[in-house]
């Protein structure tokens, strides 16, 4: 029973013990680490393949369609068919392209998308590497994507690609700043940058309760970083055809596609760890294998939210997008960080009980929301005075 309750971790340790019998210990450690890396990568690949199916199914249901249902039962084999098709497809490459850059970009984007998972805790005791700067590592790796996207857009020698790449750079840079700030307040409350420690710190209460604004800012910025709708302007198909990956086909395109879905999964996973308690949930102490189920359930909840948004909303224009980042989210995240710091210090000085502290956080967040709503309303009034009328009057003749 004890073995089953923590099946995955125990299985892992058992394999390690078996290996230890005929390998030197350093070799066992190396093999196990290598195996862990391969397992995580394969898990991600399967996840991504079925995320594409999930997205198509959910979007189809929202749009009152059925979605893929021809390949296998419920279209379950559709992702495999897609993958095979992309692998055996010819890779076209423009003669005018900057060939090394063009060929390297998909590899860079795939590597950058996979690397954050080295530190992400999937469950209790199920983490590749619990480094003490996990959050910083994830942020810095995910900004590598920007470079790959710019390489792809510029390297193809295509004008749509260049425009898409430029948009991607402006957008990802702009949203990186509020993203870092919203994580800053989490680091402040938990006193750590290790993802495992942040998860552990939320045993009693998820941080979304104390930091609702930071959660929203993080989710918006994460969607923008992952190029998800309504922030998918670098690859807006109705404007730039496909944006930065317009010249790619076959397996190279497959890696861009894969990276996009992994990034969506990463954003959801990070939001889960930072704000929704990661793998925490009832009975995790007694039955640790539940933790991975909790984690995946929360992540898929957020993924579903992102798909839902994509199926519902039009996309913004680049200037509106950058305005949102610099003029709304950045001041909001800054204020949130300052308020969090002040409230935290005051609560510690006055020795408030922890429930009361949470209440004060809630209150301060509400005040912040109120202030922002007021500022937005005032600027909206000003715009209206300049002629932007929200309620058009229809005349009847």
């Amino acid at each position, binding site marked *: 029973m004890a073995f089953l309750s923590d099946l995955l971790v125990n299985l892992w340790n058992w394999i390690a013990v078996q290996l230890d019998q005929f390998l030197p210990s350093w070799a066992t450690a190396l093999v196990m680490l290598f195996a862990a890396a391969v397992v995580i990568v394969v898990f991600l690949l399967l996840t991504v393949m079925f995320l594409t199916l999930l997205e198509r199914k959910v979007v189809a249901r929202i*749009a009152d369609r059925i979605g893929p249902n021809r390949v296998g039962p419920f279209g379950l084999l559709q992702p495999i068919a897609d993958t095979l098709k992309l692998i055996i497809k010819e890779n076209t490459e423009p003669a005018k392209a900057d060939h090394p850059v063009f060929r390297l970009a998909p590899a860079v984007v795939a590597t950058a998308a996979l690397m954050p998972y080295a530190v992400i805790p999937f469950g209790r005791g199920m983490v590749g590497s619990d480094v003490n700067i996990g959050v910083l590592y994830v942020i810095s790796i995910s900004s590598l994507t920007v470079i790959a996207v710019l390489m792809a857009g510029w390297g193809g020698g295509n004008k749509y690609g260049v425009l898409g790449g430029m948009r991607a750079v402006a957008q990802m840079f702009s949203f990186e700043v509020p993203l870092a700030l919203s994580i800053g307040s989490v680091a402040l409350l938990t006193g750590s940058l290790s993802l495992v420690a942040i998860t552990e710190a939320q045993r009693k209460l998820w941080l979304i309760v104390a930091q609702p604004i930071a959660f929203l800012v993080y989710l918006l910025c994460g969607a923008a970083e992952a190029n998800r709708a309504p922030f*998918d302007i670098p690859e807006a198909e109705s*404007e730039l055809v496909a944006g930065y990956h317009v010249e790619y086909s076959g397996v190279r395109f497959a890696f861009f596609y894969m990276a996009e879905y992994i990034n969506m999964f990463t954003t959801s996973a990070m939001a889960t760890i930072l704000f929704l308690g990661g793998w925490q949930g009832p009975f995790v102490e007694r039955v640790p294998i539940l933790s991975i189920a909790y984690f995946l359930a929360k992540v898929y909840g957020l993924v579903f939210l992102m798909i839902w948004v994509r199926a519902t909303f039009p996309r*913004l224009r680049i200037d509106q997008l950058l305005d949102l980042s610099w003029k709304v989210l950045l001041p909001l995240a800054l204020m949130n960080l300052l308020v969090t710091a002040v409230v935290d210090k005051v609560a510690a000085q006055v020795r408030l009980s922890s429930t009361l502290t949470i209440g004060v956080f809630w209150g301060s967040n509400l005040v912040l929301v109120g202030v922002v709503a007021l500022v937005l309303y005032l600027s909206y009034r000003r715009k209206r005075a300049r002629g*932007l009328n929200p309620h*058009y009057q*229809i005349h*009847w*003749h």
Partner: protein
Amino acid sequence: MLKTQTITLNLGPQHPSTHGLFRMVLTMDGETIVCLRPVFGYLHRGIEKLAETRTYLQNIPLTDRLDYICSMTNNLAYVIAVEKLAGIEVPERAEYIRVIMAEFTRVVNHLVAIGALLNDLGTFFTPMLYCLRERERILDLFEMTCGARMTCNYMRFGGVAADLPEEFVPQAREVIAGLYYWVDDLERLLTANEILLVRLQGIGVLPRELAINGSVTGPTLRASGVPYDVRKAKPYSIYDRFDFKIPTLDEGDCYARYLIRLAEIRQSLHILEQALQDLPPGEVQTKVSRLLRPPPGDAYACTESPKGELGFYLVSDGGISPYRFHVRAPTLINLTVLPDLVRGLRIPDLVAIIGSIDIVMGEIDR
């Protein structure tokens, strides 16, 4: 500021949001459009010339292929022109059926226009598919009546090709009731959407004077505050018997063009209810020779097609085919204001403007 080079970009012919094969040569400074040069003709099939070698009756299917979304109104405009040329009377029941079909076509067109506009704005097909789903219900009615869904070829000189089947009227009533409900639903989804507002309001403002000087017609004109609708201004068929209103808006931007279409859908449904109520019994076609030889002369008939004023100018030399066959295509003329609308805007705005003008290349290139 550093020196910036402009780039020249072909938007189209093979592009997702040019609604067919339309090419725009853009000169751009970064994302800002400095100059736009439209290039037509990728879908040119020589319909006007072709029509001169075919009989008057054989030309009706050609008009289906002009604006392939609303074939019924194209048929209608053409047969009215021929009837004017040859002096043919139309039975009353046929006139009612024509109005019913024309107004259903208007609803179909506006649904497709709104759906395509939302697609251009980047919604991942959801509103588009909702619109197409409702359109299918109307196409079912078309199929029931004339056997075809898109290229209907239904109107005839002196009437319509076939009488309505028995179950048409109850099913049409059902469709109309469903559409009333569904248009409200669509409005709840879209009209107050913040992203839609910022993407459409104040974009592509077509001033009243420019609209009149550019001879723009249809919803695009009415969104700029000119209450001109051929159905009211020069009533044809039996439109003078129905109670309906012409909506206009003063703003003239993309959002106004979107709102005007929703308002017109509701007005069309109102006309449809009246027409179904008053539908008289009787003949649906007067006897007209299949090899029609109109007396020498010319005739111009204009109708309010869903996209604007659709006119046919026919010259007869007394033979079996028209001597001259000219189409006043509303979207071609509406499109002429495009370069003025987009100057200084960005690519996403351009896409929204094209979507809100509602073009169909089949009609522009002919």
